[in-house]
């Protein structure tokens, strides 16, 4: 076991500093230690902005995967608009540009009492403040029969990577005239408009390549993010393809049999060519095993600092956190990360943290050239993160082609910017 303690690190620094730049080095990573668990939008942005705001901090990012595949724009990969490489993010610039130490390893234990994190690779990291940004995990068997093995046959594709490719291959292999089922979960879940963007882009793919096919959305809800805008687009473009079945009309999937290829609601049984089951979710497993989640499966936090209300010196951001009106989105996670980074710096200095000021902006593609958006600015009101009254909201209904096309172009620009801002 390797114990990377502060003493070891300062010892090494001291040796190097003695060679030449004592002054320059003293400003480099000799300050308090912040460990970040998870390298998605939340974790990567937090690590980067901690160093931007205070380069003296000793910032370590631990992420299980050597690269991160983003969920935003993974729907464009599913339908062949982009390759996997388009959504692959690397961590090297966090190190070369900002001085973040990055470890590819899996955190298996967090002990808030001793302020220590342990990894599967046998390393131990001590921290003064910890940021946990693990994203989501799935509640297997919440839908009867849907477990990790079933997901290899009926992909969720709700964590980007091999699952994204599996869904793409199944769509390519299905016959013209086949049925696609998408089963979105109830609230709360990662990326509220995501299942409906996926339905839209798959319908666009079917219309072009397999026009006799149908797409059924078997929903566990009666309303969803940007629903009026999606339905407006579906009526215009995919009236013969998409059918949305809300919970009130028995849309909720209660059971699957992956081996037989069947998907069941309480009243009907389907045998689709492609079944995309998006199961109910919780905070990432490490947050739960560390005791950071409440009964809901997600993590209660202070709305201004994102410090866990269940563990001192531990902050939870992104999809894993209960963040009031902020949706579980990449932009929310990234915006929370900056607020959290600033709060940690204030807390380490014994200063009062700033009040939260955060944004969410996210785009959905109803077709490759048809974009819609939702935006909101957040502040804390009555102890809860709430959107600023009189602002925010979704794109207008009834907008013309130029407007939708412009938002589709902005969607791509948004993606490039947020990836740059988070990982580079």
């Amino acid at each position, binding site marked *: 076991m390797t114990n990377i303690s502060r003493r070891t690190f300062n010892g090494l620094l001291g040796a190097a500093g003695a060679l030449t730049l004592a002054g320059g080095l003293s400003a480099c990573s000799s300050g308090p230690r912040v460990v970040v668990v998870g390298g998605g939008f939340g974790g990567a942005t937090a690590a980067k902005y901690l160093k931007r705001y205070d380069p003296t901090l000793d910032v370590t990012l631990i992420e299980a995967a050597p690269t991160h595949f983003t969920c935003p724009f993974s729907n464009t990969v599913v339908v062949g608009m982009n390759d996997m490489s388009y959504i692959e993010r690397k961590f090297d610039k966090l190190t070369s540009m900002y001085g973040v130490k990055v470890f590819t390893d899996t955190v298996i234990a967090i002990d808030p009492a001793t302020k220590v994190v342990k990894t599967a690779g046998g390393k131990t990291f001590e921290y003064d403040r910890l940021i946990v940004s693990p994203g989501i995990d799935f509640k297997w068997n919440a839908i009867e029969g849907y477990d990790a093995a079933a997901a290899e046959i009926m992909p969720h594709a709700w964590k980007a990577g091999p699952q994204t490719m599996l869904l793409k291959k199944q769509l390519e292999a299905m016959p013209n005239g086949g049925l696609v089922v998408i089963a979105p979960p109830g609230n709360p879940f990662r990326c509220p408009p995501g299942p409906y963007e996926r339905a839209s882009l798959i319908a666009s793919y079917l219309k072009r390549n397999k026009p006799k096919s149908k797409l059924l959305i078997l929903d566990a809800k009666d309303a969803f993010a940007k629903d009026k805008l999606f339905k407006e687009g579906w009526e215009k473009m995919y009236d013969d393809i998409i059918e949305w079945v809300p919970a009130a009309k028995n849309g909720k999937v209660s059971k699957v049999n992956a081996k037989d290829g069947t998907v069941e609601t309480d009243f009907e049984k389907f045998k689709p060519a492609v079944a995309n089951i998006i199961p109910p979710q919780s905070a990432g497993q490490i947050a739960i095993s560390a005791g950071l989640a409440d009964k809901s499966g997600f993590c209660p936090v202070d709305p201004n600092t994102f410090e866990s209300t269940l563990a001192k010196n531990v902050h939870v951001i992104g999809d894993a956190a209960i963040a009031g009106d902020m949706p579980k989105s990449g932009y929310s996670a990234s915006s929370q990360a900056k607020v959290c980074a600033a709060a940690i710096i204030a807390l380490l200095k014994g200063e009062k943290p700033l009040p939260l000021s955060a944004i969410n902006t996210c785009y959905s593609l109803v077709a490759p050239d048809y974009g819609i958006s939702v935006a909101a600015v957040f502040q804390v009101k009555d102890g809860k993160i709430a959107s600023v009254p009189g*602002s925010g909201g979704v*794109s207008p209904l009834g907008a013309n082609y130029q407007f939708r096309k412009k938002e589709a172009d902005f969607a791509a620009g948004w993606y490039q910017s947020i990836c740059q801002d988070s990982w580079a």
Partner: protein
Amino acid sequence: MRGFLTTPGLCLAFALAAAPMAASAADAVTVMADSCAGCHGTDGHSIGGMPAFSGKKADELKKVLHDFKSGAREATVMDRIAKAYSVEQLDAIADYFASRKK
């Protein structure tokens, strides 16, 4: 442990490379303005189709933001966002981005 031994070297390189880069203290204006960077790039250096702020003068940015807030300027999404901020806050955001490295 082997990988870790390289860190001081890396840290040294970082100290040299980063020397000209002024850290931005995490004050209220910085944190408020940095939430814009998700769409417009770190320090407003957008690399894609989103408008960049680099090279823009503070007055120019202020006028655009005021017009988004009032509705005088057509927008897809910025009208919805600008309405959340006071004129003073919009001015502070404009001053922040105008002062960032080009």
